[in-house]
């Protein structure tokens, strides 16, 4: 390429698409034949533009992006269509050409900062490797400059550290540094922040936005969060079952979704929908009707009785873990520090905090699976630490958990019938016939067909497994259910469904929920009271409305501000 060519193409670039994907089809070779993962995908990215692909897991969003950088897994191939980079079709380009393009022209920030840095090499070396592979100067000063640009303080010293010495946010910064180190013209960011806490997520995305706009880099952002996409991108592309179903300017797409799937998505996105439910509550409208039109199981609308009795009281709870540090020595780590709150019967209390805030430890102690170091948990007037084995057995009937990981919380060797029947059998309730009847009822309650009984967890989707987990938790007619990140692992639509189910069960059965979550948007949808935790301490408590409308502490404010999409001002008819 001569100098004059470069000048001409620089001038042209502004109004020619940098990346254009036309009729892209991608298929995977699997044990049961060829499976189409992506069909008819269209996508255009102009220079300097940020485009977001939004979709649920399995919608083909990551696959499309990987095809653009030529990194499809071994059994996948582009079976049709074109990927035009500056007018050059790279969909079938030889590996040599792709190696030239990667890093220099197309950069990538992968999803999981924990597993995408090689643990045996220093951060600086990993940056250097990228620079060298693309023929850029790669002295220590250059490496430090790249890291400093990505917002890592004290970059020179940091470059000499190993990945395990970095926090999640810092690792993601290092990955962004690597992705942008060779100043590519297109950066593919695959869920760059989904593994991070909201406040960190915000910082990282702000920084990414600033850097790419300085460099004039186009960004292809892949995310499951519609709010985040709309906030960060000029243009949003919605993918569903391998097809692009809608694409357009981000705000317009949110305000005026045309495709039924997009409509559904916009209606369920917690970050966008939260406000609406508040309004709905005041109007006395059942939240189901708003969230999932057509799916609400009509009737049985019970107005939640206002109860005042405290079913759970947590008083000055403390938990200290001993951390091993070399020969026989141990240091104390206070996971939960002087936490007190109470939960009223028939209401939902949410404990919110980022990772490491001690919220799950509180849940474990309430479930009597961990012994508190000091402090008391009073359930229905009785201090739970004084219970003997028999009383604990009885206590377990009344307090049940639902866990985060729908893939881990069901025994893969048990079919669904045995899974839901287990609590009944353990507590010797009823005979075989009556237990089977109860299991059928429970499946009805969580809106799963009774034929599910014979199936195994690996045949169910995440949402269905979580329903089974809910059915199992309900089997013993408990009073309190502890939901430990119960919906965090689910896709938005499924999440909305499960939240609706939980809300409906609460109004029907008068359940009390203790909801542990990091997701404030979800809290707003379902909780009556909020406890915000930071580093083991309770920072703020109050009713959901109070905390959201008038947060008292800086930390709470920062958390609220960090909800993606929170800054989007939607017109009143939508918001």
């Amino acid at each position, binding site marked *: 390429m001569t100098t004059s060519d470069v000048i001409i193409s620089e001038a042209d670039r502004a109004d020619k698409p940098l990346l254009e994907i036309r009729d892209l089809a991608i298929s995977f070779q699997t044990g049961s034949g060829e499976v189409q993962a992506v069909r*008819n995908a*269209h996508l255009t990215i*102009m220079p*300097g*533009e*940020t485009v977001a692909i939004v979709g649920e897991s399995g919608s083909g969003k990551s696959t499309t992006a990987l095809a653009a950088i030529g990194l499809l897994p071994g059994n996948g191939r582009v079976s049709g269509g074109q990927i035009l980079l500056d007018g050059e079709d790279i969909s079938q380009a030889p590996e040599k050409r792709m190696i030239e393009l990667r890093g220099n022209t197309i950069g990538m920030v992968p999803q999981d900062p924990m597993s995408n840095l090689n643990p045996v090499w220093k951060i600086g070396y990993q940056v250097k490797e990228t620079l060298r592979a693309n023929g850029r100067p790669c002295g220590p000063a250059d490496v430090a400059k790249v890291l400093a640009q990505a917002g890592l303080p004290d970059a020179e010293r940091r470059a000499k550290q190993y990945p395990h010495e970095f926090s999640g946010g810092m690792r993601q910064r290092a990955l962004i540094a690597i992705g942008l180190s060779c100043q590519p013209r297109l950066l593919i960011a695959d869920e760059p922040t989904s593994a991070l806490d909201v406040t960190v997520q915000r910082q990282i995305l702000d920084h990414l936005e600033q850097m*790419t*706009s300085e460099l004039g880099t186009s960004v292809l952002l892949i995310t499951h969060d519609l709010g985040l996409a709309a906030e960060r991108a*000029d*243009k949003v592309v919605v993918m569903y079952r391998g*097809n*692009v*179903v*809608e*694409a*357009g*300017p981000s705000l*317009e797409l949110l305000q005026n979704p*045309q*495709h*039924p*799937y997009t409509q*559904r998505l916009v209606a369920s996105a917690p970050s966008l929908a939260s406000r609406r439910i508040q309004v709905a509550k005041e109007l006395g409208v059942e939240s189901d009707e708003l969230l*999932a039109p057509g*799916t609400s199981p009509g009737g049985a609308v019970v107005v939640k009785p206002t109860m005042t009795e405290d079913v759970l009281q947590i008083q000055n709870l403390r938990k200290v873990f001993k951390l091993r540090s070399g020969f026989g020595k141990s240091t104390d780590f206070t996971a939960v520090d002087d936490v007190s709150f109470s939960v009223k019967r028939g209401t939902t209390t949410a404990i919110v905090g980022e990772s490491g805030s001690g919220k799950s430890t509180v849940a474990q102690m309430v*479930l009597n*699976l961990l012994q508190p170091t000091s402090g008391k948990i009073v359930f229905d007037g009785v201090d739970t630490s004084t219970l003997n084995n028999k009383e604990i057995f009885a206590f*377990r*009937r009344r*307090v*049940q*958990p639902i866990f*985060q*990981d729908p*893939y*881990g*919380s*069901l*025994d*893969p*060797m048990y*079919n669904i019938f045995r899974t839901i029947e*287990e*609590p009944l059998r*353990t*507590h010797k309730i009823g005979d075989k016939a009556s237990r089977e009847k109860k299991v059928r009822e429970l499946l009805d309650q969580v809106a799963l067909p009774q*034929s*599910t009984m014979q*199936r*195994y967890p*690996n*045949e169910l*989707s995440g*949402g*269905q497994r979580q329903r089974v*987990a809910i059915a*199992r938790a309900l089997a013993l007619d408990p009073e309190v259910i502890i939901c430990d990140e119960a919906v965090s692992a689910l896709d938005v*639509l*499924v999440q909305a*469904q499960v939240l609706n189910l939980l809300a409906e069960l609460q109004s029907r059965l008068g359940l009390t929920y203790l909801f542990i979550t990091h997701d404030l948007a979800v809290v707003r949808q379902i909780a009556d009271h909020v406890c915000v935790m930071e580093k083991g301490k309770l920072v703020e408590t109050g009713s959901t409305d109070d905390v959201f409308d008038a947060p008292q502490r800086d930390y709470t404010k920062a958390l609220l501000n960090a909800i993606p999409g929170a800054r989007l001002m939607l017109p009143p008819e939508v918001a």
Partner: protein
Amino acid sequence: MKTNREIEHFVAPVEETPLLATDSLKTDQAPLSLWADAWRKLRRRPLFIISAVMIALIIIVALFPGLFTQVAPNDNCQLANSDGAPAAGHPLGFTFQGCDVYSRIIHGTQASLMVGVFSVLFVLIIGVTLGALAGFYGGWIDAVIARLGDIFFALPLILGALVVSQLPFMRENRGVWTVVMVLVVLGWPQMARITRGAVIEVRNADFVTAARSLGVSRLGSLIRHVLPNALAPIIVLATMELGVFIVAEATLSFIGIGLPGSIMSWGNDIAAAKSSVRTNPAILLYPAMALSVTVLSFIMLGDALRDALDPKSRQR
């Protein structure tokens, strides 16, 4: 960074991707347990089919040797036939003592297989119990069992077998059971280690915590949830060890501390044949082949099972 560029709003026709009900259940396939799934994968693998057929054949031979040969293995041994070539009714020839080689191999299957099966059985009982307790409870139980296992683990098989089989009780009662005892004493730590590892992997799974919070006791959750989920590597190891134990029996018999000469086994036959290697190597070859094929079958079966039971290959 928002641009002023005109962005077109594209909507795909709804017919192209009809909307499915959110999170609908697949109901077109029969329910699949781990075992059913493994079986479905296995029955199409040649490795499994071949090894399973071989093993079935070996078991039938061991149970009903009379079906395969009418020649009594030890009667009618005539020294005139010593190291004799194959003759009518004696397809593999004669041993040094003038006995029928084929018949001895057929009748020797039983002892070899019995040693393998019973050794694995007892190793499973001891190794899985100790390994599961060590892995599940941890702490001092783990430390004691692990060190105990290490002691036995450190003993080389031959050396250990020499020592154990010289105990007076063992010397007086030499037979299938003493060989089994030697192999179990030296073989259980391997099984305990594998079990311990598998149990540790499973014991912190959410479904175990869920079971505990349902009121299932600790031991109950170990037996009902942890062990069944830790079973796959145990089965694989047991299958492979079966082959290994059969070889070990032959090795011990070969050096004269295994089965006594009065019991027909492949190891004894190989040992007896070593004196005629130069005159008639075939009589060493045949029992050795029987041994290799048997062991290979079990190891192939173990390999096939490992692939089929691999939890990572299961659809989520």
